[in-house]
């Protein structure tokens, strides 16, 4: 099968507008006859389910959590980008488009990214209309801040819990449709199989996680809004339940997987503190607006950070990248932190951490402004600190509290210790311009698809993409498919395809339960995570990746011999749920390594040690690798398909933030 991205013709700035006005529509009466399944209720899923229901479609929504409001979008902290140019600092749709393409190290699709930038402004309007309480200035206008990889202030936020507020907005829209009877909500349900009839996605098999029973659900179309797969690394900033299972089942059923090796390692997370650790906690990128990153200039410096004088501190990001300073993109900041720690300049007990220090801006930026407002001439350091602290508290209070709770250190007084951790996956199911996967009728939205962030996502762009896909893209593009389905009557779930899919899922679950070995699911997940982190993490090499593939294959074989799952199938059994997810991670991990091995270049978050500049920056190979890797499942192996990327509007260059 050849890959058809179906990008509309015409000027990049006009494509979406023209496409929207020419796309076939489904009339309101017909919409009421069409059923859509939405899996996942994060920003993409909740906004899509709500909007499609508002338009009249019959929607069934599924989430594995106990409520749709708990999807992991809730944990996004810093903000959401939009090209509003409210700050009059030269922002525009084109600039957001350009920043995103460049930030993605020229591995994203121009047309999709431009559409994303265009939709960004409507998202903010929509969220405000829903009652999302964004931060505001005294005049009542919306407030903005900066994020990495940009030189404008276009990030809208609600303290350090923007994701929560946006998701609760989308969730309220979803629940409104539930109340109106337009959405049927299935919480504590996990999709375990895709049902295809005559090559088209026609439904899913879902497992009720409370009763353990398998259910058959028909849909004229199926939307996967199931998030990313960062948990393949075991330790990540993802929620414990975040998983690849739905996307992986889709992949096995024919959906190509795009750029699986593109993983985002976020530079500012609380470092690992012990072997029992179950997850890592992010400290928002927004902190880099006011936090300065440094390490001592001396190796193995054991002094307390507050005792290290200014001239013995190396603000290495400001030194290496003066134009963007502490606000370089995430991949660059992460690698720079790793470089310093590997060279022996790391801090803290493990020496695998750097400082994120707020003292300077707390005093000099905010303290001075507040003192000036209060007409305090020549404020002393104590006054500056006291006044500045209040401002910092208002901006980042919940993050500082979280840091203190976890580390037992007070970040208002002592610099935070931070280190990179797995945070997001740019890769995902390959989709065309309509967000349809290679299985007709099956779509992927938000983090679950590969489409907008190339090899590195800029901060505050995940929320933007999830909501753009759900509120503004899929409601239009799905018409392109469903207008041809208006004659398709809802199909009986007694159809042989449903029976076969349910049997397959049933057999798989029975097989897992039947192993009754000696090792816990968790222990396999931890081991897989370690292989992935060491060999397919921040730095990768041909040798390491080959080893990783062999190790994952061996671990997978051992899993199917020795895993022990307690309890039984037809009951609430979280260990069984986890076993199914880890089984899929054990396959995905291999594909990620295969993809990383294929890509003989460094770009964005994908850093192959063999391919770097003299200064240690990622060295792209545009001649041979300017493509999206789309992998087709062939049972035990994969076949690579390539979607060549064309840049007609942006001049490709070596990415520089110096």
């Amino acid at each position, binding site marked *: 099968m050849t890959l058809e991205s179906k990008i509309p013709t015409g000027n990049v700035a006009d494509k979406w507008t023209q496409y929207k006005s020419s796309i076939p529509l489904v009339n309101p009466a017909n919409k009421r006859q069409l059923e859509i399944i939405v899996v996942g209720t994060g920003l993409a899923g909740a906004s899509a389910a709500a909007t499609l229901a508002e338009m009249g479609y019959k929607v069934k929504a599924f989430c594995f959590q106990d409520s749709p409001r708990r999807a992991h979008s809730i944990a996004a902290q810093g903000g959401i980008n939009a090209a509003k140019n409210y700050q009059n600092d030269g922002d525009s749709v084109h600039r957001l488009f350009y920043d995103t393409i460049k930030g993605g190290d020229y591995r994203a699709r121009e047309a999709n990214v431009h559409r994303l930038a265009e939709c960004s402004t409507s998202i903010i*309007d929509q969220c405000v209309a*829903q009652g999302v309480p964004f931060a505001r200035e005294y005049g009542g206008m*919306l407030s903005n801040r900066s994020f990495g990889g940009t030189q404008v202030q276009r990030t809208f936020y609600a303290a350090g819990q923007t994701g929560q507020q946006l998701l609760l907005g989308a969730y309220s829209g979803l629940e409104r449709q539930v109340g109106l009877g337009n959405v049927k909500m299935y919480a504590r349900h996990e999709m375990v199989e895709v049902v295809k009839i005559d090559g088209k996605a026609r439904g899913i098999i879902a497992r009720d996680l409370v009763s353990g029973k398998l259910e058959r659900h028909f849909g004229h179309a199926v939307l996967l809004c199931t998030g990313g797969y960062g948990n393949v690394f075991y330790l990540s900033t993802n929620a414990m339940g975040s998983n690849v299972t739905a996307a992986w089942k889709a992949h096995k059923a024919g959906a190509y997987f795009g750029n699986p090796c593109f993983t985002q390692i976020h530079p500012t997370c609380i470092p690992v503190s012990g072997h029992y650790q179950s997850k890592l906690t992010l400290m928002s990128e927004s902190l880099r607006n006011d936090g300065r990153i440094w390490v001592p200039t001396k190796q193995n410096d054991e002094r307390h950070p507050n005792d290290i004088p200014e001239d013995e501190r190396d603000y290495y990001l400001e030194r290496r990248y003066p134009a963007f300073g502490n606000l370089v993109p995430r991949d660059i900041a992460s690698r720079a932190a790793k470089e310093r720690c590997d060279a022996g300049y790391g801090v803290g007990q493990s020496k695998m951490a750097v400082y994120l220090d707020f003292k300077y801006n707390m005093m000099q930026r905010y303290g001075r402004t507040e003192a000036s407002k209060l007409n305090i001439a020549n404020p002393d350091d104590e006054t500056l600190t006291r006044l500045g602290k209040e401002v910092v508290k208002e901006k980042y209070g919940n993050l500082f509290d979280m840091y203190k709770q976890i580390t037992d250190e007070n970040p208002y007084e002592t610099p935070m210790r931070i280190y990179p951790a797995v945070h997001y996956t740019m890769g995902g199911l390959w989709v065309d311009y309509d967000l349809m996967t290679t299985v007709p009728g099956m779509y992927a939205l938000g983090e679950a698809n590969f489409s907008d962030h190339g090899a590195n996502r800029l901060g505050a762009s995940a929320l933007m993409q999830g909501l753009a896909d759900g509120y503004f893209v899929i409601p239009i593009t799905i018409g392109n498919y469903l207008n041809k389905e208006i004659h398709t009557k809802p199909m009986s779930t007694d159809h042989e395809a449903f029976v076969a899919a349910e049997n397959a899922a049933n057999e798989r679950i029975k097989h897992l339960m039947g192993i009754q070995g000696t090792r816990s699911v968790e222990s396999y997940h931890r081991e897989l995570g370690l292989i992935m982190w060491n060999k397919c993490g921040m730095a990768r090499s041909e040798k390491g990746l080959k080893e990783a593939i062999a190790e994952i294959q061996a671990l997978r074989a051992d899993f199917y011999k020795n895993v022990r799952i307690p309890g039984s199938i037809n009951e609430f059994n979280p260990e069984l749920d986890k076993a199914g997810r880890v089984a899929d991670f054990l396959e995905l991990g291999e594909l990620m390594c295969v993809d990383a091995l294929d890509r003989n270049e460094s770009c964005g978050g994908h850093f192959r040690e063999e391919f770097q500049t003299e200064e240690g920056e990622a060295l792209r190979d545009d001649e041979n690798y300017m493509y999206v890797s789309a992998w087709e499942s062939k049972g035990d192996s994969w076949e690579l398909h390539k979607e060549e990327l064309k840049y007609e509007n942006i001049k490709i260059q070596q990415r520089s933030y110096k």
Partner: protein
Amino acid sequence: MSKLMKLHLKVWRQKNTESAGNFEDYKVDASPDMSFLEMFDVLNEQLIETGKEPVAFDHDCREGICGMCSMVIDGRPHGPKQGVTTCQLHMRSFNDGDTITVEPWRANGFPVIKDLTVNRSAFDRIIASGGFISTNAGNAVDANSILVPKEIADEAFEAATCIGCGACVSACKNASAMLFVGAKVTQLSMLPQGKPERQSRVVAMVNQMDAEGFGACTNTGACAAECPKQIPLSVIATLNREYISAKMNGK
């Protein structure tokens, strides 16, 4: 690494909604740097290794924002520390040799599913009854055309930080959900966008809250004291005010 603490746990075990439950005793060694849930991970690994059934408990983000974790620890929802969810509670808040009792949320509105896991779908139904602003995607005007004074925005935000965990219900002797409902009503009735529906909203949400079997408020204040997001008791006053005013307007 810090010294391990020896703990004695009394944990509520209940096979399913229908069956009766009981406390089981367990011994666990924990590091003071572990979170409370990581201590439960260690316990569960221990149980699985010895062929026993692990304790079922709800958890997801483990950073205090998803609202999924829900344990009553020594009689207090989310444990002894103020303004902290169970997942953000660390073992350094306990002492070596402590006996810790762990139970599920207990309320008619939150039936136990298994062990420490309860069904909180009643909260979703309350939101579905009116906890929203009726606007469809595509309807909105430019965001800055709706000016919201900073103080109003900040107060609405404070109410909107509710994570829907249900600790307020669990803490209340009447199993009242008025802090939860009050938080949403406060957020939406304060903002200009939420004003058109403020009266129908509050009546619908209170009706649904009653239908779900949550009790009434007797101003004890346990809900606000135990709320991990420190939603203030004043949201209940706002809820009452909004409700009375709606009723007086014949809603």
